[in-house]
């Protein structure tokens, strides 16, 4: 097993960069939306074969064992090159959770299959009546001999139709305080009683699904950690990855698009446009500086502060403003549903427009993020 941490940071960055340049399919850089499993599984396989599929896992479980600082470099280089996100919930959620809180049997059963891509995981958290207020979820798991019997409905389950397994939060104590009656379960999606229905987004892609659970038997051995401790475990999983919900590359890439379009249209001769463009340049540069401040803390292996949500808020709202300006520049072409001929290439303005919609909703809506910061950072009452 290669000791990646023996490399100094610059050499490591170079090596990772070269790897992406040599191995990642050039025609799939900076995809406008997420790829389905059959579009991206070759890349998953390539990463697996090179031992680079799980950069954050310890080496003894088949990961790269990267230090926090090197893990940040790895992800930054991935973003810099515009490498598509693979279905990674097994890699960033289930794996780390089982390594930390799982049983030996669970690690034995699941970890290797996550690495190889044999098992693909989806996340069963949100429900029709439990979105921002996730802890009020109602999917119930009742103990019956060696199994829990699970009944309920999950929604906004990204790529459930491509997944083989789902990790889910279910209520195992209806009488306790709502956060204290939730358990963390692992379910095979082939279990009888599970029905998956795709949901089309406004962009016309089936990125997420509804998952119905009717008398689904989940063996007790698939309970992670202790019963009724699921809420805290789910919260502890929202650590490191939240940093990348607020990463700088999405905005920087959108700015490059904006600049190219504006140049082509001669918009830089318009003082009003130049002022707005410059404002966005500052917004993006200051965001990158803010990201660097948080990344430095994470890179030292320290816990990120309660003000981390401001990074996601600023990243996503800046992205929205950039896209708004692109659509404005597009003028008559801004409403076309498909690609529009533009100079020597063609641009799909509408896919950018759609891409700017969910960013302020997913990962905790920006309104919820603001409420969290108001209470935990600004210590406002209520």
């Amino acid at each position, binding site marked *: 097993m290669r000791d990646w941490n023996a490399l100094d940071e610059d050499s490591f960055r170079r090596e990772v960069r070269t790897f992406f340049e040599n191995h990642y399919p050039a025609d799939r850089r900076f995809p406008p939306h997420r790829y389905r499993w059959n579009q991206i599984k070759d890349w998953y396989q390539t990463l697996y074969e090179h031992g680079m599929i799980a950069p954050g896992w310890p080496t003894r479980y088949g990961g790269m064992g990267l230090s926090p600082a090197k893990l940040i470099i790895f992800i930054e280089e991935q973003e810099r090159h515009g490498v598509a996100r693979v279905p990674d919930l097994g890699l960033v959620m289930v794996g780390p959770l089982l390594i930390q809180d799982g049983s030996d049997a669970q690690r034995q059963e699941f970890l290797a299959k996550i690495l190889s891509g044999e098992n693909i995981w989806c996340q069963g958290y949100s429900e029709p009546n439990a979105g921002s207020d996730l802890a009020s979820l109602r999917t119930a798991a009742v103990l019956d001999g060696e199994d829990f019997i699970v009944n309920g409905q999950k929604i906004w389950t990204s790529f459930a139709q491509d997944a083989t397994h789902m990790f889910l939060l279910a209520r195992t104590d209806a009488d306790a305080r709502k956060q204290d009656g939730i358990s963390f379960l692992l379910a095979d999606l082939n279990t009888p009683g599970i029905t998956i229905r795709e949901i089309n987004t406004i962009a016309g892609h089936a990125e997420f699904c509804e998952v119905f659970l009717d008398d689904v038997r989940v063996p007790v051995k698939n309970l992670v950690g202790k019963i009724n401790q699921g809420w805290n475990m789910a919260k502890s999983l929202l650590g490191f990855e939240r940093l990348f919900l607020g990463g700088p590359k999405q905005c920087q890439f959108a700015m490059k698009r904006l600049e190219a379009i504006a140049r082509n249209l001669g918009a830089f001769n318009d003082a009003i446009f130049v002022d707005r463009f410059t*404002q966005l340049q500052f917004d993006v540069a200051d965001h990158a500086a803010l990201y660097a401040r948080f990344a430095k803390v994470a890179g030292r292996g320290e816990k990120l502060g309660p003000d981390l949500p401001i990074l996601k808020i600023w990243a996503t709202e800046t992205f929205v403003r950039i896209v708004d300006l692109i659509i404005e520049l597009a003028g008559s072409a801004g409403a076309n549903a498909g690609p529009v001929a533009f100079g020597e290439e063609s641009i799909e303005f509408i896919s950018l427009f759609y891409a700017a919609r969910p960013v302020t909703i997913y990962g905790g809506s920006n309104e919820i993020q603001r409420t969290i910061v*108001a209470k935990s950072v*600004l210590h406002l009452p209520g």
Partner: protein
Amino acid sequence: METPLSTEQTEELQLLRNAAARFAAQHSSGSRLRSRRDRGIEFDRAIWKQMADAGFLAAAIPEEFSGLNLPFDHRATLAEEFGRALLAEPYLASAVFAATILAGSDNPALKRRLLPAMAAGELVAAVAWEERFDSIIGNCGLDTIAVETSRGTTLRGLKRFVRPGAMVDGLIVSAATDGDVGLYWVPVDSAGLEFKTQRLADGGTVADLILRDVLIAPDSTVQVGPNCAAVLAAAIDEALVMASAELLGILRKALEMTLDYLRMRQQFGKPIGSFQALQHRAVNLYIQQELAEVSINDALAEFRSGATPMDRSLAASRAKARSSDAAMLVAREALQMHGAIGFTDEHDIGLYLKRALVQSAWLGNAAQQRRRYAALRMKYRGHRHA
């Protein structure tokens, strides 16, 4: 690549911050600012002398001229703490802006005459370089001219927005020379000088300066020739970053006061800070505060690492634009959230709004910094493609 501060440097910086905060809290308060404004006092020479004794006025002066030549981060920390306490003395205008121009001068005799006296608090200098509302954009010529006569060099013209106004000992004046630019030292009692002093919104002063064939004393040329513009631009850029730091101090304190008020003020039987409409707006202000901090830190990192003049200018304008906008937003929202009491002269929050306005206008407001940045970038691209 950025050079991070060592632990030792960070501790040193904290000590300096504490000292500056203690000093400023002792020598500045809302009631003192109001009384000074009402009595028409521009600034207090006694406090200025104490600032010198504490070493604050020597921060930007080289060691060979009795200065301390403190690192940029230290100078910014002083500016931030003075801003937080609304200290009225012209630290930025004189001890930073004027001192930095002189430190960049290639006239050692003049530097020996002026800089040690400035560090000691015995001489207060101002810079008279603006002639229009938008001199920071840098695309306007100088109407003030330096004329060679049989008596020597004389200056003729009108300078505007000179801070802190007439109560200084001398001025650095920019003027067009034969096809170039010059910077000259003009003692305040020179014949042919006339000040038209006005109040700033915060009670400070600013003056227009009329120069009627003012004779430059021997050995009083700060800088002439091809390097002159660069010396002035470098000092402007440093002053922009320091003004940004002062604005950060102002907005931090204004936000703290506002959050305290939101927690304390009760309406409808509960603290108004429990209302989500206000909570979310407060978070927006906090975000702007953090953005201002990181953009200033980026600029300081550029200065530390010896970046090119172009990169320094870009970083300085970016920091000043963010800090000006952030401070104005925080101060306006602070007033709104305080309600009617915030609109009274009696409450201190209005003093923060006024100082934010005064410092965001200095050396170019946010919109002007964006224009400067865009113009510089255009030039930059031109060079790269050439």
